[in-house]
């Protein structure tokens, strides 16, 4: 039941750093509690502009605007460089008069202006380079920057963990995947036929056991289907499995009560979420949480009844971290996608409580007291060293020794990795809540949790820098954003992990959707920096390409469903549209 961080993008803070621009002036000069007086506001604007101009703040800005206007309208930088500064008087020559004048007079007047010595202050093509060197060029228009802010703050690129595994395969790779699906379907059909045969023959117990065996490989059918973005087919398989579990849905006529139900419900929720059916996803996730809690409590009762030496507290909290917490994470994220941040926080808190119970339980067993209200990381840091930096695998004797020493608790990399992933999710949630500083702090705290990449199937070495990039871009610090993106990119390839059993497991590269987000953010940040027209164009294309890839992921859906499918990507579509204009 492994979970991967379903990354998304959820804020935007107050005033943001803008390169070398002067500090933002105070905002309290207009008494906004007084009745609105347009004259006061107009004078406020005049005074601001007057003193900005007096200080010379506006000359560079005016030139910069001209460079940007001319870049946007196709004119060269040399024209911008030739424009007179504010201090230059046009000697009574108004633009209106120039407009009204004939072509020859216009050319003559403008030539005269451009020949003025100060007009060449920045010198031809050096103007754009000079502005870039000064760090004041922001290459996105307001509407584009706002669209980008929505992308990295409120909007989501891949709103569901299901999408993290989607691949756009072609050629041999696609054929190979389809063959795998066909083989799994064949196996499933054979198992179902076996159940039918046993039921027909009246071998009820054997039929029931065989029916349970049917449930296991079903995921090998529907997961590759949604992995190929064949949403409807995957959904049909999941609903078929759900129906099969019901008494009337299988040849045994009995309810097939299986642990696989809670897994299936999470997968179902993820698929519905990806398809834009949030109500359906909510129902599935809540059902999964409910089922997981019931199973945990039932399992505990069974163990207490059959194994007197069981450590109930440790067993319960470990089960909650492993089984219930991931479902809370899913619900929390769904609420983010729905825009319900209050409820998102509630589910996130429920997830956090699972980890608090675990590390708090460890501390208690170790006789370490923790201050009431201590942060999760503090509790983790108070736990014994072997719980903070567990090794891959312990011998049965070591496990027994730990159980005896720590009241049933055994160190495991699983819990440490989950703690770090939770902090990543905390950062993500804070970003959605428009708390960028808090988001960065959560990621900083995460680095205090010594999670080994060898055990991290959540790929936090990719997702944490990606999250830092989102925060930096939300703050319009595009250079830093690009650095974090480059770091994430370095961890996007295939990896080898050690599972909790100590086995080496290969994982493929980061899949198309998260990688697309990375490429898009990179493109948007490059366009924002506007270091050159070519780079801006490359950035624009990167965003457009991403949107095209996203559109392909919904191709198998009906037109109406495609609309729902693309809804979470509205901010990206908007950004691409604005950059195209």
């Amino acid at each position: 039941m492994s979970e991967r961080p379903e990354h998304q993008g959820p804020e935007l803070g107050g005033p943001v750093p803008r390169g070398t621009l002067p500090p933002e002036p105070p905002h309290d000069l207009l008494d906004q509690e007084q009745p609105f007086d347009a004259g006061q506001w107009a004078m406020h604007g005049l005074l601001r502009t007057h003193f900005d101009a007096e200080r010379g703040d506006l000359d560079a800005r005016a030139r910069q605007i001209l460079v940007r206007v001319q870049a946007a309208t196709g004119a060269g930088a040399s024209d911008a460089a030739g424009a007179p500064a504010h201090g230059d008087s046009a000697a009574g020559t108004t633009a209106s008069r120039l407009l009204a004048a004939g072509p020859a007079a216009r050319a003559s007047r403008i030539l005269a202006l451009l020949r003025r010595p100060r007009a060449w202050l920045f010198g031809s093509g050096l103007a754009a380079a000079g502005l870039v060197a000064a760090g004041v060029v922001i290459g996105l228009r307001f509407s584009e920057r706002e669209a980008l802010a929505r992308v990295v703050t409120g909007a989501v690129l891949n709103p569901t963990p299901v999408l993290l595994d989607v691949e756009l395969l072609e050629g041999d790779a696609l054929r190979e995947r389809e063959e795998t699906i066909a083989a799994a379907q064949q196996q499933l059909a054979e198992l179902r036929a076996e159940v039918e045969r046993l039921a027909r023959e009246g071998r009820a117990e054997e039929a029931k056991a065989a029916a349970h065996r049917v449930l296991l490989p079903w995921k090998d059918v529907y997961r590759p289907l949604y992995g190929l973005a064949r949403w409807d087919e995957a959904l049909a398989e999941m609903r078929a499995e759900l129906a099969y579990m019901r008494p009337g849905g299988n040849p045994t006529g009995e309810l097939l009560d299986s642990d696989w139900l809670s897994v299936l419900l999470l997968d179902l929720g993820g698929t519905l979420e990806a398809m834009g059916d949030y109500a359906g996803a909510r129902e599935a996730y809540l059902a999964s949480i409910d089922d997981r809690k019931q199973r945990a409590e039932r399992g505990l009762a069974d163990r207490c009844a059959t194994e007197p030496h069981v450590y109930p507290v440790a067993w319960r909290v470990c089960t909650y971290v492993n089984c219930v917490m991931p479902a809370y994470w899913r619900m929390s994220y769904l609420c983010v996608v729905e825009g319900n941040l209050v409820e998102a926080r509630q589910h996130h808190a429920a997830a956090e409580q699972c980890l608090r119970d675990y590390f708090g339980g460890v501390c208690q067993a170790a006789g370490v007291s923790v201050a009431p209200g201590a942060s999760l990381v503090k509790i983790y840091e108070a736990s014994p060293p072997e719980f903070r930096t567990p090794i891959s695998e312990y011998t049965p004797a070591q496990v027994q020794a730990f159980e005896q020493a720590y009241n049933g608790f055994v160190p495991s990399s699983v819990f440490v990795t989950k703690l770090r992933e939770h902090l990543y999710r905390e950062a993500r949630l804070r970003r959605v809540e428009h708390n960028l500083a808090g988001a960065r702090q959560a990621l900083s705290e995460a680095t205090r949790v010594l999670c080994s990449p060898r055990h991290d199937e959540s790929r936090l070495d990719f997702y944490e820098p990606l999250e830092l990039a989102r925060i930096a871009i939300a703050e319009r610090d595009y250079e830093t954003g690009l650095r974090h993106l480059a770091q994430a990119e370095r961890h996007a390839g295939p990896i080898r992990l050690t599972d909790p059993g100590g086995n080496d497991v290969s994982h493929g590269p980061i899949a198309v959707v998260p990688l697309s987000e990375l490429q898009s953010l990179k493109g948007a940040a490059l366009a924002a920096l506007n270091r050159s027209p070519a780079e801006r164009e490359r950035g624009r294309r990167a965003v457009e390409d991403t949107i095209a890839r996203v559109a392909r992921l919904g191709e198998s859906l009906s037109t109406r469903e495609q609309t729902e499918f693309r809804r979470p990507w509205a901010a990206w579509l908007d950004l691409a549209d604005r950059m195209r204009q």
Partner: protein
Amino acid sequence: MEKTREALFGVLVHEHDLGLRAFVRACTQNAAEADDLVQETFITAWRRLDEYDRARPFAGWLRGIARHNVNAYFRERAALRQHEHVLSPEAVAAIADEFERLNRPPRGEVYRDCFAALRECLETLGGAEREVVHRAYRDNQACRAIAGDLGQTVEAVKKRLQRARAALRDCILSKLEMEAVDV
């Protein structure tokens, strides 16, 4: 011909940047956003230059585009940040009307007269008013800081600023009126 248009447009940007910025700056408190809005207004103006009716003041046409952009900006901000104070389209229109008054033909086509008048009017302000205006706008001090420095309440500083702005407005309008009569 196209190059000539571009160069000509450069002059337009030069001449109208200050006036346009003053209007946008009156509407939004954020200098960086004001830059973007001014920039976007000029880009739109360039693209729609053929629609410009030369019989009408260019500054008014530009301000119309800027008004549209400012309203769009506030709409987007309101959607993005639910609790943020934004100006209503009516308030933006009222501010635009104020600038229309400060920009009446035949004078003030390029605001240079308006800014020149402002410079003179600042000299006529009483000492206490001039002090708070300079501290607030020239030195970029917040009201709270000014109040601390001058040993006054924040409310008193705000009131003084309010009186100073009203006096400056009357002074500018009267100067522009007189110059218009002279013309």
